[in-house]
């Protein structure tokens, strides 16, 4: 736990000195304006919740790919990864702490979106089931930590991590139902959405904002958490395999 907390503390130290790393926050207003402009122009109050959720969850994903995932790639470039491998402490705990620190900041887009909606459009969405909403948000942040570790370990294997991460964003936005509810998508695509935790997050948060009862909140939260755990375990295994392979072959990257 001490190593994990040391990672959290170190990442906060690093982020404080690199405000440009938080550029993701600067993209939120554009998404908010785009989404809310469409909804308000079309006079579709039923879609306001979607318009607020999209920038929030896209911001969360943005923190994961823009900042959390590149923690390990940065370690490779600076050769601190090698030094970490030779240290007695478990590096994966430190890296998990650093990734978690970034993802805690991933909650900021939520506040930013709400604030911008109020300031620019005079709209604040109702959240009829706040406990479910916050539980879903917390589970989503946890799942994003696991997903980030999995992505980070994967990106260690490539020299072109930025290309892959940039490519991933739009398919994820679409398949997760962050921009458009999953049931609007072509039927053959919908099963793919079920393995993306963000689709469960988006659906549950949408329902939590609506006036009607939220059905199956427990197991839906469990689905988000379960997918997060699966990603966390997958990331941990892949990182261990990658470091073991680096010890055997003398290289980290796959190609």
């Amino acid at each position: 736990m001490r190593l994990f907390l040391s990672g959290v503390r170190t990442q906060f130290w690093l982020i404080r000195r690199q405000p440009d790393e938080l550029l993701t926050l600067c993209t939120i207003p554009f998404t908010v304006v785009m989404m809310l402009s469409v909804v308000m122009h079309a006079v579709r109050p039923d879609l306001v919740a979607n318009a607020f959720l999209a920038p929030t969850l896209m911001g969360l994903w943005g923190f994961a790919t823009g900042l959390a995932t590149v923690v390990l790639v940065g370690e490779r470039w600076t050769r601190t990864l090698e030094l970490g491998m030779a240290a007695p402490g478990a590096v994966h705990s430190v890296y998990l702490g650093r990734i978690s620190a970034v993802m805690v900041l991933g909650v900021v887009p939520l506040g930013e979106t709400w604030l911008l909606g109020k300031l620019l459009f005079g709209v604040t969405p109702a959240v009829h089931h706040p406990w479910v909403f916050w539980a879903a948000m917390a589970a989503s942040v946890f799942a994003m930590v696991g997903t980030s570790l999995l992505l980070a370990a994967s990106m260690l294997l490539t020299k072109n991590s930025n290309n892959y991460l940039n490519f991933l964003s739009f398919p994820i936005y679409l398949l997760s139902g962050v921009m458009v509810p999953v049931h609007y998508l072509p039927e053959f695509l919908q099963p793919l959405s079920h393995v993306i935790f963000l689709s469960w997050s988006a659906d549950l948060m949408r329902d939590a904002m609506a006036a009607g009862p939220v059905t199956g909140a427990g197991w839906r939260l469990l689905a988000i958490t379960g997918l997060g755990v699966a990603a966390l375990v997958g990331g941990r295994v892949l990182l261990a395999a990658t470091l073991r392979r680096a010890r055997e072959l003398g290289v980290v990257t796959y190609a």
Partner: protein
Amino acid sequence: MGVTVSVRVQDLTRTFRKGKGWRPKGEEVTALAGLTLDVPTNEVHGLLGPNGAGKTTLCKILSTILLPTSGSAEVLGHDVVTGAAEIRHLIGIVFGGERGLYGKLTARQTLRYWAALYKLPDARAKVRTDELLARLGLADKADDLVETFSRGMKQRVHLARGLIGDPKLILFDEPTTGMDPVAARAFRTLIGELRDEGRTILITTHDMDEAEEVCDRVTLIDKGRVLATESPRGLAAMSGLHRWVEAETSLDVTGIPGVVDTETRNGVLRVKTTDDRAARAVLDFLLDRGVRSVHAVPPRLEDVYLDLIGRRGMEV
């Protein structure tokens, strides 16, 4: 237990495969080819050799970053494969240059981060950090970002980081790369202090003067094999093949029989001769022409290095 040998390497081989994929299947490249080496406890030992000789590969294996292909390596009595966890508590690694540092952390934060990875309890980490910052002359700059430091100061952060776990063996990989002469001198003084504290030190370097000054013994490595292990003076004597003459002159001596090579540095001519008779002939030639600042000198480590490894230029 009284370990008298800190590093014991026997018939160590390490090969790499070129190519892509999870398990590359390309051409095999040998970095270490049956290398054998003992480094006694409390010795400052230099690893010298051209680029690609296998120095860094050896350091990586000893620091458990890399596994050997065959053979064995023990560090402080622990095998690098089966006892890697124990070894990591006992060693420190120091890189040269910009590698291995977080520019956006302060010197203090850097040490606190690594103290955690070396499993120091918080209270001990604070004390150890302050001790090292003071010892390495970084106390006044402890809360400045590492990226604002000069090269010499960054190297001191590296050193402090390498010492955070109070290692018994310290591996230095090209530690004075890019250092100015003043910083390099301070580094050499520190090496002496670390030895006085009972630590064993293994240094890879291209700097022959540095090796000659700080190392108790040096090992010349080429193509993954040990060419020789000796004290710098012993190595020079061992080479025994050539005699050297130095003189402050610009006269041409290349026509004298037995002169193998000449070079001029800072106005001083160094003449490499085949034997005592040839050296005598050069001395007589120069004295006859009124050159007064002239003397026979023992070979330097650099001369031995060039004799044994050859003047390869850019070849690796």
